[in-house]
């Protein structure tokens, strides 16, 4: 009996080695709710064995509120094992309830086992306004959450971080702690450069809150200091493709000067040539 069991064990082991059982994976999910702009979801997939990112897996994103589940979309992992969904529409869920579960699922294939990850979020709404009050640029937030009865209540003592998105990352501007009415404000610097238009996007975020998870909203202001676009045109300079004018002029004058005289000399030679015939004898008189 014992030997039989060992035999079975060994066979399974051999089998699994040959058929290469699908590998287990781990999924890590980060979700950021953006109110009317939907939900951003980012799933990072690594294989269980050596924590390497897995590329090319299709991840399905879905959301659940109460009894209702909706598919939000799908994305494929890149070489960092990241699959991202931007602005998935979950309005249908928001009509049902104010608390959701978001899930990222991998259905499994011949190489990797199925797995899923989910996060629970309660809805939070950040109202963000960029207003100039007494000539001071002010960022005003009003954060609302919902109690169990489904009533809107202000979110007090909430930590809201304010950023301006830049080329590579978010530039922190400051933090706001909301008052008992869910309000808070922040003086916005008036010397922050923007693109040519003067527009600056302002982002307010609640980050890693235990009930609300991540939430984000943004507004476009015209508080940016305009950057001189003209400055990015290359002038005539030693280091640009076009030489300074004086240099071109000097060069042309010098070249014309020298080559004109060469021409003159050749012209004299032609004159010399025309003055005789090859059969003429040399004349040595002075």
């Amino acid at each position, binding site marked *: 009996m014992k030997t039989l069991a060992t035999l079975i064990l060994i066979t399974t082991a051999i089998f699994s080695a040959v058929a290469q059982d699908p590998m287990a994976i781990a999924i*890590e999910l980060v979700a950021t709710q953006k109110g009317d702009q939907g939900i951003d979801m980012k799933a990072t997939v690594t294989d269980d064995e050596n924590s390497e990112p897995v590329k090319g897996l299709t991840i399905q994103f879905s959301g659940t509120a109460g009894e209702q589940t909706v598919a939000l979309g799908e994305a494929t992992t890149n*070489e960092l094992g990241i699959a991202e969904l931007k602005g998935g529409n979950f309005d249908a869920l928001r009509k049902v309830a104010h608390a959701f579960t978001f899930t990222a699922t991998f259905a499994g294939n011949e190489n990797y086992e199925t797995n899923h990850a989910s996060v629970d979020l309660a809805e939070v709404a950040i109202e963000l306004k960029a207003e100039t009050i007494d000539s001071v640029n002010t960022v005003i937030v009003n954060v609302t959450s919902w109690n169990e009865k489904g009533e809107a209540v202000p979110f007090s003592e909430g930590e809201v971080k304010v950023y301006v998105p830049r080329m590579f990352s978010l530039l922190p501007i400051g933090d706001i702690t909301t008052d008992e009415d869910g309000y808070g404000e922040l003086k916005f610097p008036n010397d922050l450069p923007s693109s040519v238009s003067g527009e600056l996007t302002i982002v307010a975020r609640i980050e890693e809150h235990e009930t609300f998870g991540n939430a984000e909203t943004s507004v476009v202001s015209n508080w940016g200091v305009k950057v001189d676009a003209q400055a990015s045109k290359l002038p005539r300079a030693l280091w640009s493709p*076009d030489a300074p004018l004086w240099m071109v002029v000097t060069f042309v004058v010098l070249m014309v000067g020298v080559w004109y005289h060469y021409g003159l000399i050749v012209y004299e030679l032609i004159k010399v040539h025309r003055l005789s015939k090859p059969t003429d004898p040399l004349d040595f008189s002075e």
Partner: protein
Amino acid sequence: MDNSNSKRRNFIRTGLALGLASVAGATKLLGEPDEKKPAHNHTVKLLSPDGEIVEVDTADLKVETHEHAGTMARTITGREGIEGRKFVMVIDLGKCRNARKCIVACNKMHHIPEEKEWLQVKLMKDNENAAPYWFPKTCFHCDNPPCVKVCPVDATFKRSDGLVLIDNERCIGCKFCMAGCPYSTRVFNWGEPEITEPATCPPYSPESSTPSKHSTVEKCDFCPDMVRQGKLPDCVTACPNGVFYFGDENEDTVTNGSETVRFSQLIKDKAGYRFMEELGTKPRVYYLPPSNRMFPVERGFKNLTDDQKARFKDVQ
């Protein structure tokens, strides 16, 4: 050079670039880059700009693989700068411990062998009484670049986004730019260049600067093909101490991957300066003085090979 001429030239170059794009497709079939990435769910200790040590989850770090622009449609000649940008770098000398991770990353990204260093870390000692310090040196992408001035064929050029790049398909290898650069930034391919991991090498463009071409000049390029995709240059992300800050001066923002700060504020607070300002080259790289050191200078010798140590024997 009049305008119509340069337009025609660009047209020709675009044609060439499109040709290269098809080659790009072919190399993609040959093999996908198989980058090894650190495990997630791990935290690493990082330095904030104020020198505080913070713990950050690696998943939150901008650790990016080098995705060359080869995957994008190749309509970029590399000669036009990225619209509206003016790139700038800040190097915090107080945090460098000669970990050489930047060099390794740079070499890997540009497929250049170990002995060729586009990015160097020098050991500087400003005078007899001064304390030595580690000095990472990239190309400074000078605004008044003496190297560009002297190039006879417009092979090395300054772009509107501040970058100084080299077109290795134009360079005639006269090395005049190497004489021109006062910072010994440029290197020459004296023989047939060694290209590491050629299978994953993208097609050549002045923005990828790779693969190396024999008998031409090359140097640090600030990874414009990464930057074009909104990703930081590899040295910035590779540095475990957040020494390199990179960003757009027009946005007044620089980041070292974990910390984003206003460029002007950083320069103001930490007395940023440009190396050898008196030469008038107007570098686009700023240094923060090696004050409030995070590491004793000796730390920099720890993981060096004997050969590498021997380089610094004159300083100690």
